[in-house]
């Protein structure tokens, strides 16, 4: 299986600030009633974007800049700390990705969300608190501004400013080498898997 090498994403950015944004907010549970991930994109942040009265409300994803991301199928989402906490639903990064975002920059990410995103080829890079505040302010002032997410060089830049970014080494390695989906590696040595299994009494039935 050959996958794209994801070394750098340069695209328009939209900021969706706030800490502890959980996956129920990213994709409400009623949209998990499905047997495929198709169609999740339009429901990303649905209950934040639409009021109880069914009317659209002010939200970064209801802007022309976000619509442009959807159209281009390319964009950078700028978020806060502990993004994607809560439920393990892969529907959350799927909805963000299907909306059109191809990279996420934030303060920190919940682990399952991070892993799910990486497995989709969506890099999640972290900035320090102050740097993130600076980037968020730039993007909020000028929604749709171009942001460069350099996965290989571990930096994020915008408007001539550049900040040091972090991402766990294994995820970076997978993204830049086109091996972000681990299935090929996991299928790579069946003998070793069987050997481990045979050593486990509860699996081998011993």
């Amino acid at each position, binding site marked *: 299986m050959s996958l794209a090498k994801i070394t750098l994403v340069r695209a328009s950015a939209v900021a969706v600030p706030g800490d502890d944004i959980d996956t129920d907010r990213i994709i409400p549970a009623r949209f998990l009633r499905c*047997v495929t991930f198709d169609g999740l994109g339009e429901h990303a942040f649905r209950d934040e974007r639409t009021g109880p009265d069914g009317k659209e409300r002010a939200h970064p994803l209801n802007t022309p800049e976000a619509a442009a991301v959807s159209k281009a199928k390319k964009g950078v989402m700028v978020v806060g700390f502990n993004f994607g906490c809560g439920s393990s639903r892969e529907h959350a990064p799927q909805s963000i990705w299907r909306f059109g975002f191809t990279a996420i920059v934030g303060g920190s990410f*919940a682990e*399952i969300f991070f892993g799910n995103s990486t*497995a989709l080829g969506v890099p999640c890079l972290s900035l320090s608190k102050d740097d993130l505040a600076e980037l968020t302010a730039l993007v909020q002032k000028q929604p749709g501004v171009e942001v460069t997410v350099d996965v290989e060089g571990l930096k994020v830049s915008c408007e001539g400013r550049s900040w040091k970014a972090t991402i766990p080494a294994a995820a970076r390695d997978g993204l830049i080498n086109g091996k972000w989906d681990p299935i090929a590696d996991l299928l790579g040595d069946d003998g070793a898997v069987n050997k*481990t299994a045979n050593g486990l009494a509860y699996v081998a039935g011993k």
Partner: protein
Amino acid sequence: MAKTLFQKVWDAHAVRKLPNGQTQLFIGTHLIHEVTSPQAFGMIRDLGLKVKYPQRTFATVDHIVPTNELREPYSDPIAQEMIEALRKNTKDFGIRFFDTNTGTQGIVHMVGPEQGITQPGTTIACGDSHTATHGAFGAIAFGIGTTQVRDVLATQTLALSPLKVRRIEVNGRLAPGVYAKDVILHIIRVLGVNGGIGYAYEYAGSTFDAFTLEERMTVCNMSIEGGARCGYVNPDQKTFDYIKGRPYAPKGADWDAAVERWKSFASDPGCRYDDVVKFDAADIRPTVTWGITPGQAVFIDEKMPALESLNDADRQTAADAYQHMKLSPDTPIKGTKVDVAFLGSCTNGRISDLREAAKYLKGRKVSPSVKAIVVPGSQLTAIQAVKEGLDKVFTEAGFEWRGAGCSMCLAMNPDKLVGDQLCASSSNRNFKGRQGSQTGRTVLMSPVMVVAAAITGQVADAREVFKV
């Protein structure tokens, strides 16, 4: 060298080092349900792969099951489609399915322990973040995403990086009216909702030694709410006694060998931890959440925090939370009007929870202004409860008695809040919109506190209501 349980289980299941530096870890037990597995089966079909160990994969249905409809087809055609997809997938690939007509269906994190599938020293994965529940038995249990469900189906392994281990010790006796749920809500309040990122939590100390397996499950269940991917308690005699005789428990001579093996997985005395945190059980009081993250909690007799008292990072989320919850900073939460009482979920939907709740409910009535439902987490729990007459205690008091499932813990079935109803809930998440109405409000608490809220119509201190 002295090792933690986490290290021992990890070492026993490590297949090899992957080129990216991660470990290929063997997953001995794979649990699946209807929400996060259909896409994974789709992927393995697309790739032309098979399920490598169908006999180590177990399925049940829980999230979408309507708990007030016993017959199919369900009135929600999508729910019907999802249950049928799981039936087909498990049949096509030869996987055991604890279906609704077997008397063994239930929330996936209850079915594993009930069947004796959940065992010490094993690795468990499930496409569900509350998989840490199984850690109560000394298993290392991970919640995973759907692509990883595919990985486990196809290879029985995952690509993972090891976690650090934080030992969380709670010592002493809990005061009357204080429960395992209060212990974990307190731990999360103190360590934060992201305090556990990068860690496995080892729960220990005399309070945990004294806990039943069901109480240990309540605590391990909410590890993820503290940011920890997994949580566990070292196995002991209580663990073995719980497993003995269950359908998938080892039998005969195998049993003794298994117990010896299980014992050997417990953390060694003197092993090194990446961090140690200690709590005194006597300091913990009944705890309730006031906000929209499980860490936004106070003791029932405390005031909710003033915004000025919070640090910068927490203040914004708190302001957002107060607005959503329609509550005021620096005021008591006690006395807040409650519209709905929900007793159930994989945190607190077990037989001991129902017994304890029924003990205080007996002879009392639910407030006329409250809609109260009780949802046993599994069919086996429901059967046992009926045998003990608990269903009668609940219905006579004015609770609706339901079939097994996730119900109002999350909004994937007909049980939902309406408008800005406030729900006293024994579940684990108080996120905005979690219970099905985007303006709905959730206050997390122990089952006995839910009963106190149901009968008084307010967030109440169960110790006062029941004079304990």
